[in-house]
């Protein structure tokens, strides 16, 4: 399968903004932390044509930062993002419009003062995908495809429920006829019954349009449901990546194992205590990640080697890549 969107050793640092207050505090002798946070460190991955790659991890693991770099919204501090082998953010032919994004919060991603018909038409008209005259028909078509009444085009975002707004966000992204759709926690703020509707819509449209997708979520069962392959992140790095069925059935990295075991399962019979098992300890601060393997302070299998040397992401016989000395 051909690789559509690739990240080549991308790293992203965020330098803390030094405010006036910080400067005054520093002048008065307080310690002001100016260390940059490295949100993503040396990540390489590829999204293949027609697949959905799931990206999972806990808060602060860098999954959204990686997603935003892949979407072309955020430039990497080092490394490169390529769309079909070319850097999409440079040169005469900007191709960032080929990648569209659906975010978690449909309240924040729609301008409250713009009617949703205009919000959907804006991008395609600006980029010459559709003429202004043909735009209303295109908007009506997209509203219908995401399960909304075409008459809603003249409404404002506040007149919609959360689930409907997420449908609008999907319509707006897809109206740009993207090659790659990046979804960052698209169902995280929705109720269970609405989440199911949006996931069904996503599955239908993906099949109909043959979309290539990056699907970012903290919800392991949602990612399992939609993904062909899954990448697991911990503290800015990918610790395991491979075919979704294999990773969920037989996770290799101790963090993936711990993460999957810590999710409470629906207990229909038997011992509810066996439904989940917590990972001991807490996420270390990304300001001072542990030496060696970042997971070693929480890992039962950790040895001296893990404390000193960071394991590389290396392939196993079934094609899964794992970053662990003992897996």
């Amino acid at each position, binding site marked *: 399968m051909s690789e559509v969107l690739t990240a080549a050793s991308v790293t992203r640092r965020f330098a803390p903004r030094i405010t006036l207050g910080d400067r005054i505090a520093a002048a008065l002798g307080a310690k002001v932390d100016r260390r940059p946070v490295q949100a993503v460190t040396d990540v390489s991955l590829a999204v293949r044509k027609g697949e959905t790659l799931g990206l999972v991890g*806990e*808060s602060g693991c860098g999954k959204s930062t990686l997603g935003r770099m892949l979407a072309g919204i955020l430039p990497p501090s080092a490394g490169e993002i390529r769309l079909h082998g070319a850097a999409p953010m440079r040169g005469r032919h900007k191709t960032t419009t080929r990648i569209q994004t659906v975010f978690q919060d449909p309240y924040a991603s729609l301008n409250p003062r713009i009617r949703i018909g205009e919000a959907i038409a804006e991008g395609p008209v600006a980029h010459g995908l559709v003429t202004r005259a043909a735009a209303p028909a295109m908007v009506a078509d997209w509203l219908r495809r995401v399960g909304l009444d075409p008459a809603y085009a003249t409404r404002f975002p506040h007149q919609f*429920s959360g*689930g*409907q707004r997420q449908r609008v966000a999907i319509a707006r992204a897809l109206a740009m006829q993207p090659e790659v759709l990046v979804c960052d926690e698209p169902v995280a703020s929705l*109720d*269970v*019954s*609405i*989440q*199911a*509707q949006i*996931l*069904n819509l996503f*599955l*239908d449209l993906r099949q109909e349009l043959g979309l290539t997708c990056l699907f970012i979520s*903290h919800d*392991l*069962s*949602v990612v*399992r*449901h*939609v*993904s062909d392959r899954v990448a697991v992140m911990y503290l800015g790095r990918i610790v395991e990546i491979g075919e*979704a*069925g294999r990773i969920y059935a037989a996770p290799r990295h101790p963090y993936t194992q*711990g*993460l999957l075991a*810590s*999710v*409470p*399962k*629906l*207990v*229909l*019979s038997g011992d*509810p*205590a066996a*439904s*989940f*098992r*917590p*990972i*001991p300890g*807490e*996420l270390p601060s990304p300001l001072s990640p542990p030496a060696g393997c970042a997971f070693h302070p929480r890992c039962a299998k950790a040895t001296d080697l893990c404390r000193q040397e960071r394991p590389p992401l290396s392939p196993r016989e079934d094609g899964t890549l794992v970053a662990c000395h003992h897996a």
Partner: protein
Amino acid sequence: MSGPLLSVRDLRTHFLTRAGVVKAVEGVSFALDRGEILGLVGESGSGKSVTGFSLIGLVDPPGHIVGGSIRFDGQELVGLPVQELRRLRGRRIAMVFQDPAATLNPVLTIGTQMTLAVRAHDGVSERAARDLAARTLTRVGIPEAAARLDAYPHEFSGGMRQRVAIATALLHGPDLIIADEPTTALDVSIQAQILAEMRALAKESGTALIWISHDLATVSSLADRVLVMYAGRIVESGPVGAVLRAPLHPYTRGLLDSLPAMAAPGQRLNQIPGSTPSLLSLPPGCPFAPRCPRATEICRTDPPRVEPPGRLALCHHPLEAA
């Protein structure tokens, strides 16, 4: 020790807004025994949180309890003067909220807040209160608790803050803890730690727990019994295993089928059509009728009646129990 710890009968909490009367809780009845863990599940606007807040008189205007009875250990709480309620709150009934950052005062140390909470009800010395605070923090899994008492909330992670909130709730050994989505804002690995600790604490201290959540999986791994709420009403209740194995109410069935875990990967989920109705304009019959695959004429005209407690389903056409 006779009768249930908590007995709620026909509780009605309404919000009198300019747009009309929002019947957030409409005729809720249930009982809770000592040491029992009750899961209260539902989607946004189902009334689960307002039910929890109503129990300890924390509903703010324009919300009011307009009817019903809440008996806690034989004492009627509806209509109880604020001072009397205050004596119960924190001492015999404690609450844990979703957002620990909003529960804790950012400008006071953990130790100060916890000693204030101790001394609000017990006339013990500052020193004894601090000792109790440190011991309770140790119980919820905070290492070096005595030293952490001097830390401010921002020095703790989200999971640790929620542990502090839980420890504060445990200070007086309450008979009942009401926890409103206490792990929703936490990461899964931290959520699992908190769940395991809550389960152990409830077991060893005999504290009854009302666990309010939208997440059926966490409720199934924690609760003894479950109440499912929809549009301000309890639509189904029973032992958690029985309800989730073979739900009687079509809404509970739909909620379960909406979970990705219930379908093969990549397959369409068996979704509930439509969305939750506005509480301002509920249909005259069963509030779930417009979304229900089993609805008939009677569902659209007559509200289903409440059956006697036990295994309950508020439905004209309940599914077969397996």
